């Protein structure tokens, strides 16, 4: 029996209230869009309710009982996230999402470390959130943007890496591509980037939810991820940064709660991570994110990876059955190289139309450019349909996807 079919998945599914609700057409909800955002287990939702019903209060400065509890739970969540990625607690900065984390580094680290003539190295796979902030930083500073190319399967081509790293101050790279699922060879790239004197930001939006991550073992300088993609609520994410880097960086968003002393003309700032957390934090969602991280750790990230590998393998096999009728699978065909993401197109059925038809069967997939327009242009794809898997998906979900594709074939006469 494959991991994907173990009773564990049934038990997991039972933890997710939304998966028990049929769609308006009475279909089972087959949620294959976790790369966009994941569903939430009951424990995470309950953490929000508990906070608001039992101890909602502003943190850090409160003397009274519920403020003390809120502060404790909020800081405890930071400890949980630190453990989740193998960091020190003071290296975990709460942000809204991956996008804000990357912007924080681009503004704060970027503006104080980058000069005209320096280079920034990205990859051709990057999500807009790991591209646009660097474009603007390059414009502001006069730095040059370079890209590690991808081959036609979306695998990074490292042949020219040393040349690309010359004069490079920062490398920003997705741990996992959200469009193709390809896993970046960080263990190769990071040491070589460091040898060339660059710091490395890993966009872990699709890494932390799906792979075991140890930022110290990776030796990433920055690692960014979003709660909502890993069972947590919307509105909360993490910037991990090495302590010395964070300590040397100027603040980004400023205001209440990140200061040491304020005078009318001058301010001294608190130490990291507080230095980067201005104003009232997203207290409830940080606490609930801590519960999500605990939930994942209880399942085991090794299991998560293995489950997705097996399920992706199964899905690649089932989708291949449609290839004679014009289904095209993008990205590597080897489940060892990809996290649980498959992008594809079916004959002349546009991805949006395919997604609409799948929706009538309760199957949720994403269609479009997946916030990687340049990659789509390069590859010559107008849009793709994307199925992405998580801990609550099973082979039955893949089968539902395939029945949906059959229906599209009927409707479109393919």
């Amino acid at each position, binding site marked *: 029996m494959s991991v994907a079919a173990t009773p564990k998945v049934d038990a997991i599914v039972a933890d997710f209230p939304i998966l028990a609700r049929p769609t308006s057409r009475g279909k089972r909800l087959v949620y294959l869009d976790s790369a966009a955002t994941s569903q939430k287990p009951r424990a995470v939702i309950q953490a929000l309710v508990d906070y608001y019903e039992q101890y909602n209060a502003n943190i850090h400065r409160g003397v009274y009982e519920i403020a003390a509890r809120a502060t404790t739970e909020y800081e405890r969540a930071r400890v949980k996230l630190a453990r989740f990625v193998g960091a020190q607690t003071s290296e975990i900065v709460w942000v809204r999402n991956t996008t804000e984390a990357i912007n924080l580094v681009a503004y704060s680290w970027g503006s104080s470390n980058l000069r005209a003539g320096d280079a920034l190295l990205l990859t051709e796979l990057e999500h807009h959130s790991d591209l646009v902030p660097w474009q603007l930083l390059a414009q502001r500073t006069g730095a040059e943007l370079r890209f590690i190319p991808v081959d036609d399967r979306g695998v990074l081509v490292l042949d020219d890496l040393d040349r690309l790293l010359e004069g490079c101050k920062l490398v920003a790279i997705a741990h996992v591509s959200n469009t193709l699922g390809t896993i970046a060879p960080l263990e190769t790239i990071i040491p070589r980037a460091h040898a060339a004197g660059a710091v490395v930001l890993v966009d872990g939006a699709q890494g932390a939810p799906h792979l075991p991550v140890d930022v110290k073992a990776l030796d990433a300088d920055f690692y960014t991820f979003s709660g909502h993609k890993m069972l947590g609520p919307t509105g909360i994410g993490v910037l991990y940064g090495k302590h010395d880097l964070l300590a040397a960086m100027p603040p980004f968003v400023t205001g209440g709660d990140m200061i040491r002393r304020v005078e009318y003309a001058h301010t001294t700032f608190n130490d990291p991570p507080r230095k980067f957390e201005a104003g009232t934090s997203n207290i409830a969602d940080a606490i609930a994110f801590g519960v999500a991280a605990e939930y994942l750790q209880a399942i085991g990230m090794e299991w998560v990876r293995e489950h997705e590998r097996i399920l992706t393998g199964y899905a690649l096999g089932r989708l291949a059955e449609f290839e004679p009728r014009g289904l095209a699978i993008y990205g590597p065909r080897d489940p060892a190289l990809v996290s649980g993401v498959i992008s594809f197109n079916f004959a002349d059925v546009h991805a949006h139309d395919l997604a*609409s038809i799948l929706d009538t069967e309760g199957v949720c997939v994403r269609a*479009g450019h997946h916030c990687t327009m340049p990659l789509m242009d390069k590859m010559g794809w107008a849009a793709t349909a994307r199925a992405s898997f998580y801990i609550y998906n099973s082979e039955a979900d893949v089968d539902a996807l395939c029945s949906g594709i059959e229906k599209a074939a009927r409707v479109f006469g393919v």
Partner: protein
Amino acid sequence: MDDFYRDYILDHYRNPRNFGTLERSDAQAEDLNPLCGDEIRMQLKLDDGVVEDVRFSGKGCAISQASASMLTEMVKGMKLADVAKLSKDAVLENVGIGISPTRMKCAMLGLRVLKSAAIGELAGWPDEE
């Protein structure tokens, strides 16, 4: 939604009418749906304020392409001033039933571009930035 994909829609999708480009046009506009990347360009040839010929080009889903195609058939011979006033409902009547709210932007992309071409021509385009 599956009701939407009728034969005549798929026919317009696969055999779009008035598809292509005019070498010289009197009014034109293009736009894209930033959510999905669908793009449409509309060109109009006018004769005394009346649409004499029209072409559209672009790429996208069956909904956006078929509605644009059907729209071009509808506006031939129409006064430009009436094109500028075309309503969402006029397009919806044309394409038929069953467009879900998420796909409304697809269905309206052609109309938006066409109206923008017509309104721009009527108002005189401001200097390009």
